[in-house]
């Protein structure tokens, strides 16, 4: 089975803090990690390879510093990696990113594409389904497990708010994985050693056919109109109130959240 895993290097968002004086993000010292949902996808791909044979190829898009992530992927046992990197791709929203990824993927052979459900620095969960649409592949997202493969059909378990669905999907297809579906393996010594010198393929603009008008900041259908850090509520003075009044005040604050259930 030829498996491609889409992987992204992300800042560890659990380490990001806000400078409460300037209301800006403190980025200093925040480490880069492999997006957890993607790492789960790599693990599933390596498990499938050991059961059914084949190859595991990783495709990532981002700045050159993603090379350090590729070393880790090789250390885990990934066969080959492509780093798509070009200033022309910068500023792409999810649609433009999916356009670039799917255009490049058209130049590769695959039976199965695995993407992480979502990236922790964006939480959009859009790239997997958009790539699937652009490649006209069936998609099964939000996987709880990959059960097995037989005669061109992959059996998976998809999880939603209330159910687990066992699903057969005919390959080629795209599935999205969740970090909680497995525990990623550790690097073995030989692979880790080999990883330091194993070559990867750098892919630039011009190396594959893609519509220049549909990529980058200018080709993106969505634009960020403004950003702001969390609105910090002015701390109210400590007030003495009676029980009835307290209830009304609490209710007014809870009110926007009460459409639920």
């Amino acid at each position, binding site marked *: 089975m030829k498996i491609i895993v889409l992987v992204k290097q992300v800042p560890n968002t659990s380490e990001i803090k806000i400078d409460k004086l300037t209301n800006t993000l403190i980025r200093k010292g925040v480490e880069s990690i492999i997006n957890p949902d993607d790492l789960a996808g790599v693990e599933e791909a390596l498990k499938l390879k050991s059961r059914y044979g084949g190859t595991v190829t990783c495709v990532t898009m981002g700045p050159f510093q993603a090379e350090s992530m590729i070393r880790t992927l090789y250390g885990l046992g990934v066969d080959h990696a492509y780093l798509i990197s070009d200033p022309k791709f910068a500023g792409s929203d999810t649609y433009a990113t999916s356009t670039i990824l799917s255009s490049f993927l058209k130049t590769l052979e695959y039976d199965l594409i695995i993407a992480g459900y979502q990236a*922790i620095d964006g939480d959009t969960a859009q790239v997997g389904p958009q790539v699937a649409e652009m490649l006209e592949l069936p998609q099964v997202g939000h996987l709880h497990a990959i059960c097995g493969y037989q005669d061109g059909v992959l059996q998976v378990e998809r999880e939603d708010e209330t159910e687990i669905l066992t699903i057969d999907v005919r390959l080629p297809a795209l599935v999205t994985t969740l970090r909680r579906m497995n525990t990623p393996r550790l690097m073995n010594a030989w692979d880790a050693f080999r990883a330091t010198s194993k070559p990867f393929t750098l892919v630039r603009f011009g190396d594959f056919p893609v519509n220049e008008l549909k990529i980058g900041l200018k080709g993106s259908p969505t634009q960020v*109109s403004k950003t702001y850090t969390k609105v910090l509520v002015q701390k109210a003075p400590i007030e003495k109130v009676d029980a009835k009044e307290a209830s009304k005040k609490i209710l007014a604050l809870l009110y926007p959240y009460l459409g639920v259930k």
Partner: protein
Amino acid sequence: MKKIAIFIEKKSDKLASVGLELISETRRKVGYSAYLIAIVLGAQIGEEEINQLKVVGPDEIVIAEHDLLKVYDTHYYTTVLSDIVAKHTFDVLLLGSTILGRDLAPRLSARLHTGLTADATILDFDVSDDRISLLATRPALGGNLFATIICPKTLPQMASIRPGVFAIESFDIENIKVSHYPVTLVADSKVKIISRKKVEKDAIELSSARLIIAGGRGVANQFHDVKTIANLVGGEAAASRAVIDANIEAKDRLVGQTGANVKPAIYLALGISGAVQHVSGMEKSELIIAVNNDPDALIFKVADVSLVCDAKEVMPYLIKDLQALKGMI
């Protein structure tokens, strides 16, 4: 008139409440300056569901019924919705960011060649004579940053919106149009559902709760009230050390250094003094409301809203007020 379409998810024979929330919120935001269309897909849409939709604020309800739409399949849902979009010209298309919505919305946006904002929590509309612009605001970078996203070049402008953010409201609108969209589908999906099983969601997930109602020593003897309030608001009940040590609640409800670290949208601390080991587990909450009868309680140092009052006495009022409110929506 400009058209805003809202996809209504039907799951397990019930309409997902986020669809209703979106209709009401859009109506509140645009008034009657745009035409609101609710679109619901399923094997069969009953009279009761149509009536449920009618009161929350749409101008029109479009129903698409087909046996292949009974259980969600990305392929069939994308096909039918994109057909409906092609027939109308929608300026805006909104979906709930449920697991289904987050699967469907990006696939649909790629098919329609348009932009999509994921998991928005604030919606605004700029209405002028020739255009409605959607301004969808979403949390980014683990909630550390908010971004307002626009989609200026393509239609429909799409967004998925987090469930439970907006209140459902009833509107008096006359002559709501109900139309049936003729669905033609061929059973050609590459995806086949083999079996389904219900997941028991008993496990408490304090760390992902959006609303936490927490009780401490001051309400330990009335902890059932804390739970009632949590239930009424659709949140989780939590406790401080004093309550756990008195064996009133199990340890999985504990917030603090030796328990869960939480950062809900609202943390309501009832009768909690605010010892350091408790505060360290909840100080990242977006909004902290503290009720305590001791004006010098440490909890007031981290609270955004500080009410000096006996929490035991507040709870019955709050329950009564919430019940009254629930009766209305």
